């Protein structure tokens, strides 16, 4: 019983991590049809922002939950102004340009801080569940994933900004005829996505080492989740994370972490073979 609970908790943590890692990418892809290959490096910047801020004496929570998303959001604004806005509608070119950005960020960061691992230790200690102990931070991550999903859902569903954003994505011309400036909506959406990526990097910083090349470890997972999920931002991310996170964690539990990831990739590819438009291309079509 305790074992089942512990494994269940592991699965939930795996799913939560996937949600956190993919949400920023899903917002940008789902709303703008822009595939941001520098997503992993945005996370890396968020992680560095958190580490630097907490090193400068800020409380770790402020560093992770405030400094990182704000810093990466501002960086996203610069990127959108200088790069992404030139390439709207050219999906493949955007992918290539953001890939160039990702390489340049890895290179630039390596030059700035060197190729050494820095990091922060996970707060919150450990929690006992029957005969097992689990990290309190894992529980916090599950809570954070739920809070983030609810936050994105509420922002899209209930705020004026969410309504305007959804309208612009559906039909930019009509929105613009009604007095909305699509440019600004795109910019704001990209910044929101970048901020979510930065937050994700900061949240995962205590679990992994912070190095300039850390983005590559997440990017494959994030992409496969978003693409398996399909166009609906939340329903897609949540359903794909739920499925793939479970597969990956159970695979890890039964064999090794790498085989867990390989199993997850295999499931994702088979799923894409069956549902080329992702899960939400077939079910939950009208969901957010």
């Amino acid at each position: 019983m305790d074992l089942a609970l512990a494994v269940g908790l592991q699965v939930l943590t795996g799913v939560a991590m996937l949600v956190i890692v993919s949400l920023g990418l899903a917002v940008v892809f789902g709303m703008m049809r822009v595939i941001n290959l520098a997503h992993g490096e945005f996370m890396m910047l968020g992680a560095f922002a958190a580490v630097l801020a907490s090193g400068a004496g800020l409380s770790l929570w402020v560093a992770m939950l405030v400094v990182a998303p704000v810093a990466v959001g501002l960086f996203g604004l610069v990127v959108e102004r200088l790069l992404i806005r030139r390439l709207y509608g050219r999906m493949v070119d955007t992918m290539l340009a953001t890939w160039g950005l990702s390489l340049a960020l890895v290179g630039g960061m390596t030059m700035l801080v060197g190729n050494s691992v820095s990091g922060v230790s996970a707060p919150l200690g450990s929690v006992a569940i029957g005969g097992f102990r689990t990290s309190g931070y894992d529980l916090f991550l599950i809570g954070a994933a739920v809070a983030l999903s609810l936050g994105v859902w509420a922002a899209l569903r209930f705020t004026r900004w969410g309504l305007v954003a959804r309208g612009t994505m559906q039909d930019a011309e009509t929105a613009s005829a009604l007095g909305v400036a699509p440019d600004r909506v795109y910019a704001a959406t990209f910044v929101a996505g970048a901020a979510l990526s930065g937050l994700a990097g900061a949240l995962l910083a205590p679990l992994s080492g912070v190095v300039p090349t850390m983005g590559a470890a997440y990017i494959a997972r994030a992409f496969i989740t978003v693409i398996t999920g399909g166009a609906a931002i939340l329903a897609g991310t949540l359903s794909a994370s739920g499925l793939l996170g479970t597969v990956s964690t159970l695979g890890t539990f039964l064999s090794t972490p790498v085989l867990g990831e390989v199993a997850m990739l295999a499931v994702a590819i088979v799923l894409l073979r069956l549902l080329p438009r992702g899960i939400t291309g077939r079910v939950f079509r009208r969901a957010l």
Partner: protein
Amino acid sequence: MTAAGRAALHIGAAAALAAAAVTVLPGALELFALINATVWAAMALLALSLAFAWGAGGILCFGQTAFFGLGGYAYAVAGINFGDGALAVPVALAVATLAAAALGWLMFYGRVGDVYMGVITLTVTLILFKFANSTAGEQWRIGAAPLGGFNGIPQTPPLNWPGEPDNALTPEQVFVFAVLCLFGCYAAVKLVLLTRFGRVAVAIKENELRAELLGYDVRAHRLGVFTIGGAMAGLAGVLFANCVFVSPTMFSLAYAGQVVIWVLVGGVGTFAGPMAACVALQALTAWAGTVPGFDPNLLLGGVLLLAVVAVPRGLLPTAQSLLVRLRPRPRRRGAEERPMAPAE
């Protein structure tokens, strides 16, 4: 000039270049530089493989290195087990070809869109990278060959004359072999484009829907192009394994990125452009690597960014259309170049 005449001209020029390289370079270069030149030839073949898949087939493959690495690993593993490098080459080619065919079947028959294709292929090579990195330890071996995890397989066997396992090729001979492979593949892709299969593949790239409505099987043609590209990348992996050795780096994001950069900078839709861009950028990164405190990734990323924003068509097509514009207008009609045709 007819398409066949143009192709013959290009193949002839390439043959002359290859002959010059084979006769002059082995005598003129130091051993280290010669091995480097062999690596560049292997990389140019890798660039050519993607230039074919992307330029002639319109397949956005970000993970061409998956087949490059698989070819290299298969060569090393088979070579160690057989004790004969020449026998390992067909095995390596078969592994790369089958892998490309299997992945292509999943993507094209699943009707995955082109952007998704890019992401799936990239993910595949990243997963292979992680997997190869995690194969350290005694339990990870195929036959007599340990996979070696992060360190790869340092004792990658050298190529040898067929049937004479003890008679290994000298570095000069490996260089000649690499140049011959590169030339052979270049001639092969040029000729493929002249066949019905090649012309249909280009038609599909130009307008998938129209080609399909005209009754061509988009999936089968794409699969064919992708598989040929994968096989060439596998051959490039074999050559690379011969001058360096196989390691998980062959699957890495940096390598996967470089290939795309070469093709994009050289010009999608051309073959000579990506190969030239490959050599030029390798020379540039090799130079940048000697500047202390400078990270070559920054340079590569910058070049890619600049290429997408400033010269989206690539250097060779841009140069060609500049030349056409500068040249005095010939009288005949239809002198306007066809920018999408896979020229050189």
